């Protein structure tokens, strides 16, 4: 059945064309030679042997990292569990110390920290559900924590933050704006393109010259991260639909169907003088081309949790498995788990969400291992922002409000895991973990402090490190991350990837 549809489409003239042969593509990116321009744009990139992929897992709504990575020690010189508990215990938001999953942090002198209990093995009715979660990947050196990451235009000390002379990201603490900044890695002005899209703009031609699908795939709708100047993403549903059917246009098999399909395809190269018509047609062009390319994709064997994030990562794993047939050597993926805007009932919400993403990430890692590509795929998190260390409300409904700096996870066989990464404050003070004191040196405010941490590592630094591992040429770095130059010493200090 699958084969017959594919043959049918081929006969009908919608078989895989080179990407740039699409009429709408030419309209979009220039009539002279979009191809030539892309050669020019990408001349600093040479194809790298082997396969690599980046997977962005976005915690939508602003994940409260303060309850995800918690001090588990009593060292008096650095924020310890007592400092954490003092600020969150009264309102009932502190995770009990006994339930934390302990991890050692070499960078902080081997002190113990704790991961949220739902990131480890969990049992339901006495049985482990799906897998052991991501906790033991930390101990295996496959999972790293990057601390206090956030949107920045330039490094900021507290005094600089409180002065109007130093530029801050626009509309701090606002969801949509901070999401856009995390996804564009541009915080001084509104940007049209995401940093994933810009990486793809620079690297597609050299690495996926005849890829049958775009370099970027979103399993979660249209996202600014995935949009480049010349890159449009593939956007498909999660693994609830097999790849072979995920873009399946229906109804071309009844009376007049073949003629209808021919016309359906032909209409998309007409009336392109309207930019809106051209844009709509181009998306459908990509869809029809990908539909053909995906017709013979295979399933994966690892058991994934049947949650949204589980199904999304399973779909990613299928695409990675199909990489040779799709003619791609570099891929970027976007997956998302929502519900982190925990103004209320944070504790139970976190239990659910942390279980979901931890289990899904672990299944994904295990599947990559089964495919022997675990060293070629790096999965990393981003979020709108962190949340106030000071709780909002108390008791069963206790939650947190919008804040800023936040902790991130990076997972993969190439990751220098089992440690924390980050930066000291711009003036050289502090440690690699924020000082958990309301009104303290990392808090934005001194009066009425809520515990909004000023990030010590910018999204630009974090993203640039990921992009460099992925193969972005050093010469293209400034174009993809225009504000990186504001961070002296650049990105090489972070070191969570080779």
């Amino acid at each position, binding site marked *: 059945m699958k084969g017959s549809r594919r043959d049918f489409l081929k006969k009908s003239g919608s078989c895989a064309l080179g990407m740039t042969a699409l009429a709408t593509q*030419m309209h*979009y990116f*220039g009539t*002279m030679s979009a191809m030539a321009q892309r050669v020019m744009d990408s001349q600093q990139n040479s194809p790298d042997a082997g396969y690599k992929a980046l997977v962005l897992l976005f915690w939508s709504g602003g994940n409260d990292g303060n309850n995800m990575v918690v001090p588990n020690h009593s060292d008096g010189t650095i924020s310890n569990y007592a400092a954490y508990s003092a600020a969150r215990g009264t309102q009932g938001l502190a995770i009990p110390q006994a339930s934390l999953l302990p991890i050692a942090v070499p960078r902080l002198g081997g002190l113990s920290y704790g991961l949220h209990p739902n990131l480890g093995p969990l049992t339901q009715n006495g049985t482990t559900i799906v897998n052991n979660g991501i906790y033991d990947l930390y101990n295996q050196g496959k999972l790293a924590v990057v601390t206090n990451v956030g949107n920045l235009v330039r490094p900021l000390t507290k005094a600089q933050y409180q002065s109007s*002379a130093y*530029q801050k990201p*626009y*509309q701090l*603490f606002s*969801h*949509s704006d901070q999401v856009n900044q995390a996804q564009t890695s541009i915080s001084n002005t*509104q*940007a*049209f393109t995401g940093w994933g*899209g810009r990486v793809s703009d620079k690297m597609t031609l050299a690495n996926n010259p005849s890829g049958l699908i775009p370099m970027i795939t979103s399993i979660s*709708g*249209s996202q600014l991260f*995935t*949009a480049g*100047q*010349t*890159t449009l993403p593939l*956007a498909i*549903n999660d693994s609830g639909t097999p790849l072979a059917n995920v*873009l*399946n*246009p*229906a109804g071309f098999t009844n*009376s*007049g169907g073949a*003629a*209808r399909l*021919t*016309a*359906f395809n032909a*209409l998309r190269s007409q*009336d392109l003088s*309207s*930019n*809106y*018509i*051209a*844009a*709509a*047609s181009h*998306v*459908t062009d990509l*869809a029809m081309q*990908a*539909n053909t390319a995906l017709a013979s994709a295979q399933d994966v064997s690892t058991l994934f949790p049947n949650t949204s994030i589980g199904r999304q990562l399973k779909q990613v794993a299928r695409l990675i498995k199909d990489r040779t047939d799709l003619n791609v050597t570099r891929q970027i993926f976007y997956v998302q788990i929502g519900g982190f805007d925990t*103004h*209320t009932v944070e504790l139970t919400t976190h239990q659910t969400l942390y279980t979901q993403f931890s289990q899904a990430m672990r299944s994904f890692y295990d599947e990559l291992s089964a495919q022997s590509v675990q060293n070629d795929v790096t999965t990393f998190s981003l979020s709108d922002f962190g949340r106030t260390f000071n709780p*909002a*409300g108390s008791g069963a*409904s206790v939650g947190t409000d*919008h804040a800023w700096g936040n902790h991130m996870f990076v997972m993969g066989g190439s990751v220098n895991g089992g440690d924390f990464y980050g930066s000291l404050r711009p003036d050289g003070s502090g440690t690699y973990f924020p000082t958990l004191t309301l009104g303290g040196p990392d808090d934005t405010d001194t009066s009425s402090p809520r515990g909004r941490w000023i990030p010590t590592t910018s999204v630009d630094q974090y993203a640039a490190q990921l992009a460099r591992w992925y193969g972005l040429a050093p010469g293209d770095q400034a174009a993809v991350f*225009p*504000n990186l*130059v*504001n961070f002296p010493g650049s990105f090489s200090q972070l070191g969570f990837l080779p």
Partner: protein
Amino acid sequence: MKTKISQVFLRVLTLALALGICPLLGLAQEDPDPNSPTPVLLSAPDSTRALAVSARESSRIALYQIAPQAFAPDSKIVIYVSNIDVMKDEGASAFRVYAEDSRGREYVFPVDGLKSVANYRNVYAVTLRLTDQAGYWEPPLADGDILLRLTWRGLTSNRVRLGLGSMGGTIQDDPGAVPTPVWTKGSSLPTIPTEQPSYVGYKWSGDRLRFMEQATFGQTPALDSRIRRIGLRAWLSEQFQLPYPSAGNPYPNQPLKPGSAPADCDNDQVTVPDVPVTCYRDTYSMYQPQAWFLREALYGDAQLRHRMAWALAQIWVTSGVDVQQGRHMVEYHKVLSANAFGNYRTLMKQMTLNPTMGDYLSMDLSTKNNPNENYAREVMQLFTVGLFMLKPNGTLDCLEHPFPDMTTCASTDTPIPTYDQTTVNNMTKVLTGWTECNNGCPNSVSGTPNYIDPMVLVNGNHDLTAKTLLNYNGAIPADRDIAACTGCTGTAIAAYASASMDHALDNIFNHPNLPPYISRILIQQLVTSNPTPAYVGRVAAVFANNGFGVRGDLQAVIKAILLDVEARGDVKTDPNYGKLREPVQLTTNVARNFGVASYDGTSLSDGVFVGRGDFNGMSQIPFFAPTVFNFYPPSYEIPGTGLNGPEFALMTTSTSIQRANFINTLIFNRINVSNPNIPNGTSLNFTDLQAISTSDPTGNLLLDELNRRMMHSTMSSTMRSTILTAVTNIAATTSENYLQRAKQAVYLIATSSQYQVQR
């Protein structure tokens, strides 16, 4: 004389409507010609090279003296346009100039000035800077000719060439381009090749169909007749008076759910079976409101109110993602529909106190000791004034970059934030203490959260400290600075909290951003994604003052949007005019156009589309926006273009196929009855098309009819011949085949980008 009489008549008509007297609406009302002339960019006498001169020289040189020359990037020049008819106050911001370079990239050059040229009738000098304003691409190549296009009121001029850096180069003229020299006595303006509709039907039928796409959920023959008879203006007045929802489709009357649902109505069939089995679905879920909403869109008479409420629902968003019960959503929707033709300030107050909104954005939990910023932030950011200071025409009001210590900056201009975190904190304090009225209100039932009556104050939870709210030029001090309520107790707190809320809402309502911010979003919802600043400015001016000193009069705003010269006209040719039909509009426009009925055609559709993979897969499930940022943000830029197109956030490889698949379902498969969830099903009726199809085996009459009904007679000849080929592929033999031909054509038009983009 004639004009005078009709004006008097109009006033009487308006007065009669205002007084609620039913006037003789059968009388025809003359609408003005909706069409604007097509602008013509002037060229040299013997080529398509623009008549252009540096701005510095323009006042010293007569048109006939202008010689061909190249211009430096970033220089300020003057070009000349003719065949336009500018209104009073219609200046530079009504015009856009687009340039294409030899790489095929499009740039936007800012237009700085417009003035008429002395001694030449109907010739205007347009001052522009050769600096790309869009910033999407690096600057245009300065290595030869570029092509300039000017757009005005959704119409494009011819394209003329302009030397950038130097003259010459590889760029080709548009096919059929001819010189367009300045008019001199005895000569006539050349004919400019532009898209023109091929009329079939009545005068301005294209404009009327476009109007219905903008003001309703799609045309029907009956609606078309009505508007043809009474005119756009009278139809609007009629719509303002119609009862809502329509008779026969009242709001679902679901009870509020007690703390826990009764065992026989709790969606748990195991412990105690529900009676009937659909009890939970009908009583508490979103099933009823969703089907009700779509039925009202498909069949309702009060189309404009329903459309406006839907537009407002995409600004003041709540969502079934968090909102638990159908009744909650209905009570929220009643606020939208009741105020759709009212005043925006009233809407703001009622929505602020609406328990569904209170629950959705956590204001119902916000207290002085545990303030929650959620609603306070979004009411400013999304529902009223937006993030950045705007000019009255909706464009950003930028400052020269104030951060001298930066080593680099992507832009020299920086937007000015409308407010900061301190404002959010203060606004939050003003709105503390309000929660559902679970005791003592008309609909209070012990143990059942009351989502019907407005929220009430819990005195002890209200913040009594001083607050400072939005500051702006013209802010009323009493609204901006709210003093502390020192030593207040009891009723004094209640009075203080109520007064503070009104002060705060007035403080927001009077902010200069409100008219352009909301006007632009409403234009995007109803007419076009990328309105000119002039259009936004005209509507915003009416929002700020309806002519009688009233701010926020939504009837006046709707009229200003729908009757504007940029909205009206039989055809729009500007490449950046129009909007992608959102899934709801795509669905209802196709359905209404072809006699939507139940599966068997004998009764009405039940409106049950939600839950189908192909409908849900289009990513716009009514009352189920993913977040408070709606299904799509108003500011969404289409990747690869930098062009504003909000609905394109819903246009992905996945949804584009689902759009085609849902159209396929409606046309070829129908939606079958499936008890209990789909009681009637849905089908379209192609009987009249089948007759037309049968009457003409060549298929041409069928294409004519569909071109008029779906494309307002703007179908291109290539599109027509492509579809005709697919139509005539089906043999002209049986009556079933003639029906298949009709379906073939409707499918191909409805799934085409040419139709999916409403222009």
